[in-house]
């Protein structure tokens, strides 16, 4: 009788662990972290479009969110002045895959997060396509303060971004809307996209290796702030 009681308790505990495990795993694997700041949605912005920039140094992000960076390095696409400060915009390819479509952490962690969210057992039988999807990491750096704002441009590659897509306006740097369907960050893998937000990170940059251009023309357009 006593054994039966213990067996019941054990089975109950086993079921509880089995049910609770995915939630615990999801908390662990899906959490991205990072200091998130939000600038608001798309708005009509007036400012200057600056010419292309050149940067020959290294860009180091200190304690940033875990991004699955793709080929190449950060490439400076635009630099100019806004709000009395010098900003440089860097672009880098970030890799994602199905089924999450997110470029955070490693492939294995993304898969585990996904499995934890949809339960372990059905996950075993799901087919995972092996395609690498390219998104863009858009990194706006406040050169003097050593602070950067990192956001993800979903469904767009660095190939499609150049200096003419960035407006240096009154408060900061804006990305012309309509080019990127979804720009923002996430708190967790597979979670909702926080549009118009960015991770605020500390950076190490070599300002003397940055060459900025000059304002090319004034522009007024609907745009989202990225830094």
């Amino acid at each position, binding site marked *: 009788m006593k054994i039966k009681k213990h067996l019941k308790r054990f089975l109950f505990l086993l079921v509880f662990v089995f049910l609770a495990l995915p939630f615990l795993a999801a908390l662990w694997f899906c959490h991205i972290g990072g200091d998130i700041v939000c600038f608001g949605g798309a708005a009509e912005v007036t400012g200057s479009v600056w010419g292309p920039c050149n940067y020959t140094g290294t860009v180091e992000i200190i304690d940033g969110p875990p991004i699955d960076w793709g080929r190449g390095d950060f490439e400076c696409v635009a630099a100019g002045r806004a709000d009395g400060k010098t900003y440089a915009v860097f672009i880098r390819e970030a*890799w994602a*895959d*199905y*089924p*999450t*479509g997110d470029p955070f952490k490693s*492939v294995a962690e993304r898969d585990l997060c996904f499995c934890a969210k*949809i339960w372990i057992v059905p*996950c*075993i*039988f*799901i*087919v*995972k*396509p*092996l*395609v*690498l*999807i*390219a998104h863009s990491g858009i990194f706006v750096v406040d050169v003097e303060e050593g602070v950067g704002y990192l956001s993800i441009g979903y*469904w*767009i*590659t660095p*190939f*499609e971004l150049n200096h*003419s897509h960035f407006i240096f306006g009154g408060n900061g740097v804006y990305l012309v809307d309509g080019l*990127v*369907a979804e720009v923002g960050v996430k708190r967790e893998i597979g979670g909702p996209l926080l549009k118009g937000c960015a991770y605020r990170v500390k950076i190490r940059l070599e300002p003397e290796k940055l060459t900025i251009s000059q304002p*090319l*023309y004034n522009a007024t357009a609907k745009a989202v702030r990225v830094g």
Partner: protein
Amino acid sequence: MTLYSKMAAFSHHDVLKTTEPLTCSDGVHNFTCLLSKTDITPVLRELKIGVAPEVSPVARRWVLVLDFNYTDGTWHWRNVTVVRGWELKWNNQTTYVFQTQIKKSLGEMVKMQKEVSWRLLVEELKGVTGVGVVLDKIIVTTENATAAQDAHQKKAADPAAAKRIKRFIKSIDPEVEVEVSHGKPEPAQSRYDRFRPVVGGIKIDWVVHRPSYGITSNCTLGFTGVVGDTPVVLTAWHCIAWTGTDRTRRRAELYQPERDSWNLIADSIQATCNYFWIFDNLVTSCDIVVMRSMVPREPRVFRPTESSTPQYGQVVRRLCPYDVWLFSELAKAGITTDVTRGTVISHCFSGIAIGQSWGNLTFNVVLLCNSFVAGMRADEGDSGSPVYRFEGSNDKLGAFGIVSGVNLLGTIVSPICYLPVSVDPTR
């Protein structure tokens, strides 16, 4: 956007009859200019949407245009007689347009290049390795060369081959100027290199122009072959996000090795697997897309074994599921995990890929009754890899299928026999 790049874009699409922007000189200063078949009126008419430049006439009888001689590999200034000239100013930018007696505008040359490329590279002449346009000239490179006298001397195009190519192009358009030079691509060292002709097991980039935004993905090229007489290349359908169904119609472009205008190898879908939609599920017989090839191709797979030799495996036959017995070995060559092998344990494995997206459409894909290969390792980027069996030796392959995806137990492979069109991967 600069003033001259806007004009070049119009000219590329044959709206304006100008050349591309050129480096020009008056003998003292260098500047950017465009040569035009017409006067300035049509240029200003097309530019008026968004750009209204100030225009002033320029009194000039000639202009020097920087040109490149591909035969001897030297730059030189070409003296061009000017009929009339104009200076255009807009947004602190200055561009010059000179009306001259050019034979072909940029748009006309681009059209010409497309036709000549197709016929030279795909249909007609052997040994042609590249076709490009510069100013009003077509530049063709051929691997046929005269012998160099020493190792440092540049080889010249074989005169007989050059004559044959020139005669061929003149038969398409007698007006166009043709330059033939020697050019032989270096042998490829890795799956990430540029391959011409294209073969299986190499890196490709996909670009799909979906509603409101695009998608770019990395995959592996599967097999090449023909459907009837149409040259084709095969890879995984999901690499283009299942574009090509009645709910997902858009243009897909295939680049090798990566996205760049001169790396485009296919831009029209020849066939996909059979499918039907049921609610938000795409049910399909396989995960393969057949694209019409725009570049030379060969029925081979790059480095089909774990070692660096042989460099290529020749596809000698097409295999259908029951040509490959259960528990027999298959191999795949992918860009991420290279060559891996596994054991066929089922020819009827169905699976579901969830969370696929296309524009605002989110759906699941049900893959019906494909093959399952246990122990074959594959990872992100390996989608589309050729799956084959060695036919007696390491350099002879039987083409079986295309890597679709994985689950925790193994790799799902779509047999090429499941396509609704008959692909011959040996030609």
